[in-house]
């Protein structure tokens, strides 16, 4: 199934962010088109994670605006971002370690639940119906990510690669329109990386989810992404198709260093 990349769904315009005297982002403009896989690369400390944090509302930029699905905002709250259909994973896994895989995935459906407190407490009426519906959805995610065997395991006990997968599952459970992945393959072995690549492509292909990912592994970035943005010291230094970016002199300098 060939995918059709559409109009921009997310536009970050002139965003600047600093923490005291430390400048994390400087006038970064960045867009993501519907259904595409968009990569952000750059050396350590370039501001990649800060940019994701601005998009999903963890950081509030001092300047600039963020438009998602045509709604232009100066600042976003994480809660609003989630409600608007943005889900994410974290560089250092942020799962609910004490809870089972199933419960972790269920938290992903938080915003889709409508039954009231009393109904839930008594597991009655709408709550019962709803819980079953959500369970069915979760089972789809579990099948998709091939984690049937660890359903009831507390995530704290799982190996690293599987935790990363569960975290992706929690984001998918929200049926997001925009999925932000912060180094989804960091610390994985080759086989795990291949699996993760396959999941990312399948998510994009089967659900039409728009994906923004930060990744260090160049071969992964070049294989997966439709367009690549390069950050260095908080500025965007290049943006375009993987091949163009790879040949860009500024990018080569940023990665290899340049003699002064």
């Amino acid at each position, binding site marked *: 199934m060939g995918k059709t990349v559409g109009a921009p769904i997310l536009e970050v315009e002139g965003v600047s962010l600093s923490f005291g005297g430390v400048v994390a982002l400087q006038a970064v403009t960045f867009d993501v088109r519907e259904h595409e896989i968009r990569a952000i690369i750059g050396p350590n400390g370039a501001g990649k994670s800060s940019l994701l944090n601005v998009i*999903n509302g*963890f950081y509030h930029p001092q300047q600039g605006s963020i438009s998602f699905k045509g709604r232009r905002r100066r600042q976003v709250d*994480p*809660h609003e971002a*989630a*409600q608007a259909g943005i*889900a*994410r994973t*974290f560089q250092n896994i*942020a*799962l*609910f*370690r*004490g*809870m089972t895989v199933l*419960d972790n995935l*269920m*938290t*992903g459906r*938080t*915003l889709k*639940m409508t*039954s009231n*407190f009393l109904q*839930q*407490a008594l*597991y009655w009426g709408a709550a019962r119906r709803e819980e079953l519906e959500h369970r069915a959805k979760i089972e789809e995610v579990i099948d998709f990510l091939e984690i049937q065997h660890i359903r009831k395991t507390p995530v704290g006990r799982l190996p690293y690669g599987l935790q990363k997968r569960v975290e992706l599952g*929690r*984001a998918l459970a*929200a049926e997001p329109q925009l999925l932000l992945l912060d180094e989804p393959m960091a610390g994985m072995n080759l086989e795990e990386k291949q699996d993760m690549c396959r999941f990312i492509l399948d998510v994009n292909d089967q659900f039409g989810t728009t994906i923004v990912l930060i990744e260090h592994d160049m071969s992964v970035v070049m294989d997966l992404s439709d367009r690549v943005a390069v950050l260095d010291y908080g500025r965007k230094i290049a943006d375009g198709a993987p091949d163009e970016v790879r040949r860009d002199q500024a990018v080569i300098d940023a990665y290899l260093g340049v003699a002064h």
Partner: protein
Amino acid sequence: MTHLLYSIFVDPFVQMGAAPDLLAQTLWEGLVSGVLYALIALGFVLIFKASGVFNFAQGIMVVFSALTLVGLNEHGVPAYLALALTVVVMLVLAFAVERVILRPLVNQPDIILFMATFGLTYFLIGLGELIFGGDPKVMISDQLRLPGGSYRIPMLGGYVQMQKIDIAATVIASLMVAALAIMFNRTRIGRALRAVADSHKAALSVGISLEQIWVIVWFAAGIVAIATGIMWGARSNVSFALEIIALKALPVLILGGFTSIPGAIIGGIIIGVGEKIGEFYWGPLLGSGIESWLAYVIALVFLLFRPQGLFGERIIERL
């Protein structure tokens, strides 16, 4: 020397065996005060679980809610209406705490939040004295139709005296724990609470509202405070001295773990029973009055061997 060893290690057990009805009576009294300690500890656990804050103000919340209840009644508000209004007051307090203390301090170190709850404590003491005066008040047990009097139950060749109010306290505490357990394990809010306790940023990323969760836990702690205030108040007086009793929750928490609801209950009962048994059988050796410090000694011994408590999830970081 042998006499001392005898009086420590043998004589108390001989006494227990000689008068089992007295032992049963002591155990019952220990159980009752344990349940009340557990109620206070429960208030702490709720807030600690969901926000990692050790809420120093839990004790004054108990006093403040009891004062509100009695104070309203003194001004002619019928008892049950006063109770409902007290619930509303605790809800308002929960919103105020979230808005004025927690929200501006989000992402600050836990010690800052802990200090803020100190501030809240003194604010509530001042506010309480301003509105209700500093004199001790009598709990409106009759108006609330709390059971008075006691049962004498024949047991083990003697009698065990049980105050009806103590039985009621035990039943109410059990119901409360059951309700909280259902809330934590069955509902979406419970799942969200556990999520927030595990990771703030992950919780935010799935759209859980920290503000809402904080209001809910502080309100729940407020409800627990009301129940505790009524029960303690009915046994003694409603006064600011009650606040000190909140410190008894500390050894309970160390024993049971700061994050465990069953831990708070079992810890409370161990401390309560330990205190009474210790006082009754070993107290005379030390000239009595050991009840007031025995709990802390038990807690210290526990800290040496199991710093995370009986049911705690992780090592206690604060206090």
